[in-house]
């Protein structure tokens, strides 16, 4: 619980000496023992032995869903067709920036993980889908891939093992939905990034209709370390159901925002207060998102929950991508909800109705709350809209808005009602007040009120 206790023996795997100068070059990475695990896997192990090691480690996907990574690889059919491995480096979940730091400072760790995972899955073509905004990181990765090719780690007959692998860096062009695995695949195929209906799951029909493994950057970067320390040893770190360490990105109203590597299962308070320094002087935590902006919010009394997959799920939220966003007591909850809803409205791909219409109407209703035109009954309608979205869409983007908004309305209903009342008194004619509401027009308000 105290920082002293943690500092005694913090397991640090991914971030060990991450700031070492030149670590993004292959020389420094190899001097530190890089690519040795690749050699071990390719020359002394069979693909199924690598998969078993990953299964034994209990590693769960670090991108959001938390699906066991070894199992994902074992789902790939053992048939003789073109198989693919895709690294999801889209990292678009608001509040998440851990993969950025890994790719920028230690790209070869990711490349080694990709080759190991591709070997385990029997994939001969691999892709890194990096979001278009990460220009510096894309340049670094491009150089790293060229170095790995020159050193013979990528290409045909790697290290004399007879295993071939190509690796292509693909840059996106700015779309949140391309972080969703099937949306990513469509985008990688050169289409609009619309998610696909599942099943079939990507393990059976993914990229170019072939069996495909999709993993997050952090998941893949962990794989060389699992081979190094052994799956069993890795499973001993963390809790029984959430093994290992996790990079958490702490941001928002905290004094030391940044990425921290933690052992899963430590109290959340230790991350927010111990590592990130807590909210600014004189302020208190009002609520916090434990796993990116898509996770239902938690309150200050939840700060002592252990930070792991299952505990947060039991508390009604999720660990997600490990992005903790802290909101302090100076911020009105309505403004956060509105910001969130507008973001998801913009990013909805429009393919299915509950998400496309639900995000739009949620924004309209929140604008009414903000302008004082709403009544407490609107909060019930808003909550029911969120319920109608959850589970009724092709992908989880709709849920990603509905869950946090629903949790905010449920947990801060008093504040929503007080906000409506205060706005109504301040602004009895709704949005007609000049410069009243956030650039929206009076016509919209009158139309909505009369509808």
């Amino acid at each position, binding site marked *: 619980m105290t920082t002293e206790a943690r*500092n005694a023996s913090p397991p640090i795997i991914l971030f060990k000496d991450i700031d070492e100068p030149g670590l993004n070059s292959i020389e420094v990475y190899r001097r530190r023992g890089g690519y040795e695990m690749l050699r071990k896997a390719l020359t002394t192990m069979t693909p199924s032995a690598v998969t078993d090691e990953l299964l034994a480690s209990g590693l769960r996907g670090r991108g959001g869903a938390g699906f066991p990574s070894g199992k994902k690889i074992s789902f790939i059919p053992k048939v003789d067709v073109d198989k693919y491995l895709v690294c999801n480096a889209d990292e678009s979940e*608001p*509040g998440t920036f851990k993969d950025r730091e890994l790719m920028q400072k230690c790209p070869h760790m990711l490349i080694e993980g990709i080759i190991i995972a591709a070997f385990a899955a029997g994939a001969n073509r691999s892709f890194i889908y990096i979001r278009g905004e990460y220009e510096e990181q894309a340049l670094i990765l491009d150089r790293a891939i060229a170095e790995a090719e020159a050193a013979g780690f990528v290409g045909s007959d790697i290290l004399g093992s007879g295993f071939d692998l190509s690796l292509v860096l693909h840059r996106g062009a700015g*779309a949140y939905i391309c972080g969703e695995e099937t949306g990513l695949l469509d*985008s*990688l195929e050169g289409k*609009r990034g619309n998610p696909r209906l599942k099943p079939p799951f990507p393990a059976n029909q993914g990229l170019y209709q072939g069996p495909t493994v999709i993993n997050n950057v952090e998941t893949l970067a962990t794989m060389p370390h699992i081979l190094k320390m052994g799956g069993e040893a890795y499973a001993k770190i963390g809790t029984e159901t959430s093994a290992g360490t996790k990079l958490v990105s702490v*941001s928002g109203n905290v004094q030391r925002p940044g990425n921290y590597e933690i052992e899963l299962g430590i109290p959340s308070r230790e991350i927010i207060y111990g590592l990130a320094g807590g909210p600014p002087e004189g302020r208190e935590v009002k609520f916090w998102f434990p796993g990116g902006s898509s996770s239902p919010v938690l309150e200050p009394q939840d700060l002592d929950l252990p930070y792991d997959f299952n505990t947060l799920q039991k508390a009604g939220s999720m660990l997600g991508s490990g992005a903790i966003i802290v909101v302090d007591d100076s911020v009105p909850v309505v403004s956060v909800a509105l910001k969130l809803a507008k973001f998801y409205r913009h990013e909805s791909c429009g393919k299915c109705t509950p998400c496309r219409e639900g995000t739009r109407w949620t924004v309209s209703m929140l604008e009414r709350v903000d302008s004082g035109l709403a009544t407490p009954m609107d909060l019930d309608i808003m909550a029911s809209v969120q319920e109608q979205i959850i589970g009724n869409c092709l992908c989880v983007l709709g849920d990603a808005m509905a869950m946090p908004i629903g949790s905010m309305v449920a947990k801060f209903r008093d504040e929503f009602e007080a906000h409506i009342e205060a706005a109504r008194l301040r602004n009895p004619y709704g949005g007609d007040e000049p410069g009243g509401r956030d650039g929206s027009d009076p016509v919209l308000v009158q139309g909505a009120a009369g*509808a």
Partner: protein
Amino acid sequence: MIGRRKKQADVIVPAAEAPVGAPALVEAQRTVTRFGHGSRVPGWDEAADLTKDPAEIPDPATTPVPEALRAEIEAHMAKYPNFRSAAIPALAAAQRVHGWCSPEAVEQVACVMRLTPGYLIAVASFYDMLETRPVGRNAVYVCTNISCSLCGADELLTKLLEETDGDPDFNVRHFECLGACDIAPMASVNGVYVGPIALDDVPTLVEQIRAGTPPLPGKQLHLRKSTDPNASSGGPSS
């Protein structure tokens, strides 16, 4: 339901008067201009003519493509098992040449990739970084998502818009979470992440962008060390 589509009503230019070509519509950067046929994109007027057949794959004989652009697109196409995967990189490359995904740019990509312009426009309009209208050449993306706006990103965006108001060289816009909440409030200036940007930094930043020098050199992301206290000291070896 009145006014649902309020932004359509902003400016209506009859289709015949709609200017074609990049620099003519600088003021279109601020307000979303709608043309007579309802499109936001100048130059696409004819596509809305329902009596006309959709545009076909352009004829290489009548579509000149700059050699460097053609080579780049063909290199992208060669990287993938299916050449269509190169659509986004190819459009991005054309955008670097033309400044935006102009009808001419899309035509050239379509010609090299042997795809219809309609397919490429559908792709370009999906992605935020592919511009479907003329924009200033300096892209300044200000992240205004939750973490950044908690740290004052909305004020930063307002200030940046004020400072660059009327300057056709600037494309200042809010953007989805850019994945740099540790340096909030931040902006991506022509691809370089800088932050945290104080409001007082804005005039300097704008000057630096105008002069073409590196933006706020002391505040660029790549200089930032890890905040994890255990990262540099290194825990027990694994």
